[in-house]
């Protein structure tokens, strides 16, 4: 038996569930991970990533020395350098001085609009707060965003418009209190594995009924009472037809509508066309099943809705989320335990990074940047002269890159993100990256995006730093260092502070304060203005986290929101139109491609593809329905070429009834067959979220030698 030197409790770095981990460390090597069985979040259960997926920390390709590119990169001719031989190992001083010199030079020449930064939903609250503070206080720009734009921006905007808040209204563990719940656009089993366990438990042990609304026959369908297999991008007609049924069969909660909402009359008038038969024609879901689902949801004592990217990642993602919100307004299934509107957040700290103001329209605490009072508060906190902060809304993730040209964004700072895998239409993304004049990458590996950088700042992963993550439940939990940073790598917050001081002195700015002695001081500075976090200290969340809002030091946290009112006052109904996806299937591109994740991998793959997880799931696969496969002469395991108007990839096919006829599915983790080469960069006009969930493709048989790695073959019973 191996006796650990120490066991360190911390929070999982993968998904938004925020499972509690115990890292067993021997000689600065994590050899085992366990979880306390009394954890309020995950009750001791973990998924394969949480329990085994930490070995990337020790991967030989991890970069632990600051690097500068040997060949000077020029805008328009920027190249990728994955190999260490193309980089020069330098000291931290040299790397930071070089970064500071170049950033300041570009800022002096191009002004605030030339500067932009990607914060990181994997990094801590403290890291994200500091990075947005650096860009806002020093470069006076709001060109600050992170991958929330690519996942739940549609949900966030819809919830802001309709209720005035943008997190889950209830906690995931309340799912066992639901009598009926809808899961839509979320393959929960693979993306939030521990929440799916609670969903299965709710059905199997607590008598709850589950309705799955999803174009794929996901595993939860095995546990569902009803499955509505809609065509990708037809959420608005399906859910609005449910609203139609609830209204026409008089299943509405009139008291709730009268007391808590506004805009009902206009909404009612707009419902007329959304009959279940109309929705059936568009979505393919039988009208009778839409009626059944509506009745089940509306007549339940407690009902809740859980949703994922299938709602938000559409060019009408905001409308899709509003259609769900309407169901809760009509029935009053919100504001009580076991009900609610629950967007399942993807990343471990996407909720926190958003709370920290890593967004172009908001300071920490969702305070609009174009509001004078808000700006004044942060000017005071950051020692900035009145009127010093920019009031101009910044660019979003996708816009930052599309503005990378002469007169636009010239310098980009990327902390931990990988747009060269996660943006839609990657061929276009590549052109934009090439146009940058200067790129800083702060990461643990040279990934597809970092390979474009001029300077690489080696940061530490979750197990080598202290801080906090805020999970999808709004629970703020501790992250603790289990071992020393490897090599010369440093925690993100320290890197940012050192760079910020250099920038301030070069620009002669009054310091906004960067001399923190520990991350808690950073959190407390933020909590002085973002009052949702006012009552959170490291001591209070030492054992279990606190669910914000925590307005003061004695407040126990708020698991269920909106008990008496909504933040905007009354919940607002919105009139919706059905807008089809931007690119529908046609003769030339007869399939709809939808993208997502698999259990074993994480997003762009920086962590999981450098882990034993990659052995468990080593190659990209495209899922096709047997009927489609037969028609195209494709057998399970055959190499195929999938082509869209924007790009093509070659990968093996998995022939499976997990997808529906006419819909193919590719996970987006695999650089050698990147699904995002194919996806459509059409944006939702309000949320600016791209339409990852639907684009038209064609599938052709291909040859083995066209595969990037023909010798690799996924061989798993469950896939």
């Amino acid at each position, binding site marked *: 038996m191996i006796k650990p030197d120490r066991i360190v409790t911390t929070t999982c770095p993968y998904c938004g569930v925020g499972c509690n981990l115990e890292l067993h460390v021997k000689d600065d090597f994590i050899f085992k991970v366990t*979880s306390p069985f009394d954890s309020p979040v995950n009750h001791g*259960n973990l998924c394969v990533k949480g329990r085994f997926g930490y070995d990337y920390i020790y991967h030989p390709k991890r970069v632990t020395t600051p690097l500068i590119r040997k060949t000077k990169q020029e805008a328009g001719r920027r190249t990728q350098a994955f190999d260490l031989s193309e980089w020069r190992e330098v000291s931290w001083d040299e790397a930071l001085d070089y970064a500071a010199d170049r950033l300041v030079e570009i800022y002096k020449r191009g002004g605030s609009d030339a500067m932009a930064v990607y914060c990181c939903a994997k990094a801590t609250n403290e890291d994200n707060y500091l990075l947005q503070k650096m860009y806002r206080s020093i470069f006076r720009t709001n060109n600050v965003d992170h991958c929330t734009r690519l996942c739940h921006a549609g949900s966030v905007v819809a919830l802001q418009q309709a209720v005035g808040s943008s997190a889950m209204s209830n906690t995931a563990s309340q799912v066992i209190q639901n009598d009926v719940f809808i899961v839509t656009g979320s393959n929960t089993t693979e993306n939030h*594995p521990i929440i799916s366990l609670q969903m299965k438990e709710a059905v199997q042990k607590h008598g709850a009924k589950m309705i799955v609304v999803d174009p794929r026959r996901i595993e939860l369908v095995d546990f569902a009472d009803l499955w509505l297999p809609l065509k990708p991008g037809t959420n608005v007609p399906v859910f609005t037809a449910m609203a139609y049924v609830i209204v026409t069969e008089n299943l509405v909660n009139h008291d709730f509508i009268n007391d808590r909402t506004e805009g009902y009359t206009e909404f009612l008038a707009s419902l007329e066309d959304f009959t279940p038969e109309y929705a059936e024609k568009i979505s393919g879901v039988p009208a009778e099943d839409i009626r059944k689902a509506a009745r089940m949801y509306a007549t339940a004592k407690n009902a809740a809705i859980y949703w994922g990217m299938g709602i938000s990642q559409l060019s009408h993602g905001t409308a899709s989320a509003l259609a769900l919100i309407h169901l809760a307004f009509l029935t009053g299934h919100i504001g009580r335990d076991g009900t609610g509107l629950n967007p399942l957040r993807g990343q471990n700290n996407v909720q926190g990074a958003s709370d920290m103001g890593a967004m172009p329209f908001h300071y920490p605490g969702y305070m609009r940047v174009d509001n004078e009072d808000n700006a004044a508060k942060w000017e005071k906190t950051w020692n900035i002269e009145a009127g010093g902060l920019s009031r101009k809304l910044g660019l979003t993730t996708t816009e930052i890159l599309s503005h990378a040209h002469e007169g636009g964004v010239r310098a980009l700072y990327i902390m931990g993100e990988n747009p060269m895998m996660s943006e839609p239409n990657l061929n276009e993304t590549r052109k934009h990256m090439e146009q940058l004049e200067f790129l800083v990458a702060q990461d643990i590996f040279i990934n597809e995006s970092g390979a474009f950088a001029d300077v690489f700042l080696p940061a530490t992963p979750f197990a080598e730093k202290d801080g906090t993550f805020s999970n999808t439940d709004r629970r703020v939990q501790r992250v603790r260092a289990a071992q020393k940073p490897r090599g010369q790598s440093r925690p993100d917050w320290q890197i940012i502070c050192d760079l910020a001081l250099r920038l301030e002195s070069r620009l002669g700015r009054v310091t906004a304060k960067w001399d923190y002695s520990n991350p808690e001081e950073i959190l407390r500075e933020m909590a002085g203005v973002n009052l949702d976090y006012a009552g959170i200290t490291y001591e209070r969340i030492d054992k279990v986290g606190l669910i914000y809002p925590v307005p003061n030091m004695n407040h126990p946290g708020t698991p269920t929101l909106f008990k008496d009112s909504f933040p905007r006052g009354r919940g607002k109904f919105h009139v919706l139109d059905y807008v089809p996806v931007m690119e529908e299937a046609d003769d030339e591109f007869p399939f709809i491609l939808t993208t997502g994740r698999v259990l074993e991998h994480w997003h762009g793959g920086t962590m999981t593809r450098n882990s034993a997880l990659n052995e*468990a799931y080593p190659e990209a696969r495209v899922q096709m329905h047997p009927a489609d496969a037969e028609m195209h002469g494709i057998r399970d395991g055959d190499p195929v070429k999938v082509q869209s108007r924007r790009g093509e990839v070659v990968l093996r096919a998995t022939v499976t009834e997990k997808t529906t006829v006419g819909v193919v599915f590719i996970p987006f983790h695999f650089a050698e067959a990147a699904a995002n080469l194919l996806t459509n960069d059409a944006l939702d006009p309000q949320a600016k979220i791209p339409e990852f969930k639907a684009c038209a493709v064609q599938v052709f048989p291909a040859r083995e030698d066209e595969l990037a790695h023909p010798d*690799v073959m996924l061989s*798993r019973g469950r896939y």
Partner: protein
Amino acid sequence: MTENVTLTIDGKQVSVESDTTLLKAAQQIGVDIPTICFHEATTSNALCRICVVEVEGQRLLQPACIVKAAQDMKVRTRSEKVVRARRTVLEMLASTMDLSDAPEILTMMDEYGASAERFPDAERRESEVKDDNPMYVRDYSKCLLCWRCVQVCAEDAQYTFAINFDGRGFETQIGTFFDRSIPETSCVLCGQCVAVCPTGALKPKREFLLEQGMSPNEISVLNTGRKRRKEK
């Protein structure tokens, strides 16, 4: 609503809700009953019998992990009969399986004066280490068939149903459908089975490799090149 019942455990009175097990009732008054197959997170099945207690009026010893408290019940947790039964359970375990990774059971053996040599002719349940997936190894020579792994894989946590009992009687072993390798089953590699294994029969691969004498650096470069896979 459950009613309260009052019972006596080792001469001490305790009042508990009527659906409380004897194990939990004893815990409430600080009486320690040993357990092996019991786990807070799994359904109790009274398989290992180490938690047996004597209940007045009952001919057979009763497993405290499942028997519920009842009004006026008189329970003895350390009677001679109980101690002898526990010692025998431990001696039978030690005679058939490898307890080297089960320090808690070894401590119990000391406590109960159990001898690993009590049944010298017993056939040991030997098994090769199964190393068939990237995440964990299975050494069923160390398995005492507590059923916890099977339960967490099923309704106690995962609803995955990748493993179950295989074989009958002495031949019983935890196995997969048609003895397939773990990657070929419905296994999600969550390792929940590893988390509840009381005897080290299931172990994270990395821990296993450290025990085999590999250094962290050697382990970290394993399989970092591209892995060749067999054609189907």
